[in-house]
């Protein structure tokens, strides 16, 4: 099969016999945000004591029947709508049969034949530096809902593995991309964008460290424009950086293998972050015969129009729409990207705009001053010491000329220290900018008198000295003079 609708990437693996192109598809498992599990009432919270969040259903006790959690279905549908996918009003659960110590049922309830969500897509933004010259649409084949397995610990006992079933039965969305990515950077951008959308929608917290999002990475190589090669699948990769490392390493391994006269075997591999390499999971080779069949414990899942309408109406403004709106308000592409990447920052910024701040100035201030301060203080925007309303007050004082940009930085520092409002600080510290021409003219006269040589040079044609006079006057005015007025008065005095 040769694909056609995919933008060319220039990423190539340079082998001994020429250049190779990489083809990447990702299966992302995202934990659905819900209080209770997919088919039982046990809690899903991370970090509980082992086996305390396990019901008789999750432990697969005989006679227990699964009953789907409406919220998990709703979140998967909303996620499908957010990637503009087809939502299947009729879907069904199947059993995927295999034996492993973390799977008490002996099968995972999943959706093979009739997934809840069909074909959709998302768009990754252009990133010239990363080799993505223009925005690129990445196809998403399907999203289905399934159960997570338990957790195994191998380092607690010399001869035994310990099993914790707290995660067993937690709802996952498996989000399967088309093999549309052609470089590690594109795959990284895809995971970041998907994570961003999930967090806007609120269907997954996107916490990769806690395992809320992990990816199975499918990689193959081919001569540019040739047919797809044989792929390998590296399981359970849990960070954007590792996804990119897996692709880079696996593509190189495959090229070396093929150029050495061998051929790629379709197999499951495991990533070892400490050695930064993948290795074959031979034990899984025979296990691929999952003998799927419809789960007889569950009737087909049928959704009505009212349910779907509620799902759609409850969707927030999504990253692409928000970014477009910001660009429309004159905000730079870079700032729009930074502000929309994380939902918390975007919400904070929107509140700032609602409080009356001017978009462009507000965007510049948030991405430089606020983010800089939060970085320094080691805090997230969700617990910023300054609220959007307080920030709007500060920006308002700059906008109406009450204080200069330089003074605004000082005021902001005071706000961070004291928690006081901007106007109160400006009053208390006497930081109000002055347009009092008399006072400014008096200082200008002093500056010119003290620098007669420079005045002569300026008048002799060295116009660059104008900045020096502005600087001296501002210094004499302790930064509180209105820069525009200073400029005008200086021109007059020197003219």
């Amino acid at each position: 099969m040769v694909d056609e609708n995919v933008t060319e990437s220039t990423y190539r693996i340079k082998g001994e016999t020429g250049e190779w192109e990489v083809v990447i598809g990702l299966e992302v498992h995202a934990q659905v945000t819900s209080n209770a599990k997919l088919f039982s009432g046990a809690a899903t919270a991370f970090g509980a004591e082992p086996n305390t969040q396990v019901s008789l259903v999750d432990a697969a006790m005989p006679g227990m029947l699964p009953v789907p959690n409406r919220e998990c279905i709703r979140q998967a549908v909303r996620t499908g709508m957010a990637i503009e996918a087809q939502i299947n009003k009729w879907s069904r659960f199947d059993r995927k049969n295999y034996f492993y110590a973390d799977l008490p049922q002996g099968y995972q309830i999943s959706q093979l034949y009739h997934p809840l969500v069909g074909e959709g897509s998302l768009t990754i933004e252009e990133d010239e530096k990363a080799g993505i010259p223009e925005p690129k649409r990445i196809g998403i084949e399907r999203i289905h809902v399934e159960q997570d397995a338990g957790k195994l610990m191998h380092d607690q006992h010399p001869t035994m593995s310990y099993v914790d079933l707290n995660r067993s039965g937690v709802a996952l969305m498996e989000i399967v991309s088309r093999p549309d990515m052609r470089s590690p950077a594109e795959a990284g951008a895809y995971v970041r964008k998907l994570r961003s959308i999930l967090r806007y929608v609120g269907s997954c917290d996107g916490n990769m460290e806690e395992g809320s999002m992990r990816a199975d990475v499918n990689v193959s190589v081919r001569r540019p424009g040739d047919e797809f090669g044989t792929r390998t699948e590296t399981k359970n990769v849990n960070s954007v950086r590792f996804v990119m490392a897996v692709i880079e390493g696996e593509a190189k391994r495959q090229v070396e293998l093929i150029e050495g006269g061998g051929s790629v075997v379709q197999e499951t591999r495991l990533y070892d972050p400490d050695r930064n390499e993948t290795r074959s999971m031979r034990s899984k080779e025979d296990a691929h015969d999952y003998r799927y069949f419809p789960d007889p414990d569950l009737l087909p899942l049928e959704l009505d129009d009212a349910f779907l309408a509620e799902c759609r109406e409850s969707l927030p403004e999504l990253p692409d729409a928000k970014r477009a709106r910001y660009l429309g308000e004159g905000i730079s592409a870079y700032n729009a990207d930074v502000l929309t990447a994380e939902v918390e920052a975007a919400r904070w910024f929107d509140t700032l705009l609602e409080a009356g701040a001017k978009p462009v100035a507000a965007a510049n201030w948030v991405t430089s001053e606020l983010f800089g301060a939060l970085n320094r203080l080691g805090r997230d925007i969700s617990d910023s010491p300054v609220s959007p309303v307080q920030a709007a007050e500060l920006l308002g004082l700059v906008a109406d000329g009450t204080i200069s940009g330089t003074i605004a930085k000082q005021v902001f520092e005071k706000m961070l220290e004291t928690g006081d409002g901007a106007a109160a600080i400006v009053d208390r510290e006497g930081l109000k900018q002055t347009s009092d021409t008399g006072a400014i003219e008096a200082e200008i006269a002093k500056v010119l008198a003290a620098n007669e040589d420079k005045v002569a040079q300026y008048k002799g044609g060295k116009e660059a000295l104008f900045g020096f006079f502005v600087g001296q006057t501002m210094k004499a005015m302790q930064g509180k003079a209105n820069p525009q007025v200073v400029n005008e008065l200086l021109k007059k005095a020197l003219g």
Partner: protein
Amino acid sequence: MAIDQATVRKIASLARIAISDAEAAAMEGELNGILGWVEQLGEVDVTGVEPMTAVIPNSLRLRDDVIDADPLTGGNRRDDVLANAPAAQHGFFGVPKVIE
């Protein structure tokens, strides 16, 4: 559709059921008998008939997203869950070491 002894052994292995050669031979005959019997259903013309998923009109019920709403299908019952485990330790199930 007929199955041979190799298929019988593969299915047994996937299902983690140990069978002897004699049992596999017997099973081959029995399974082919069952499949042949079920295949008679293929003689019925079902063109245009919706597949039936339940004998009575019924639809899938969904539960609300509430933790431990019903104690019988909720958590916080570790002792019950571990009661039959042959090697429960420190609140975990202990199993022979399985590591990739």
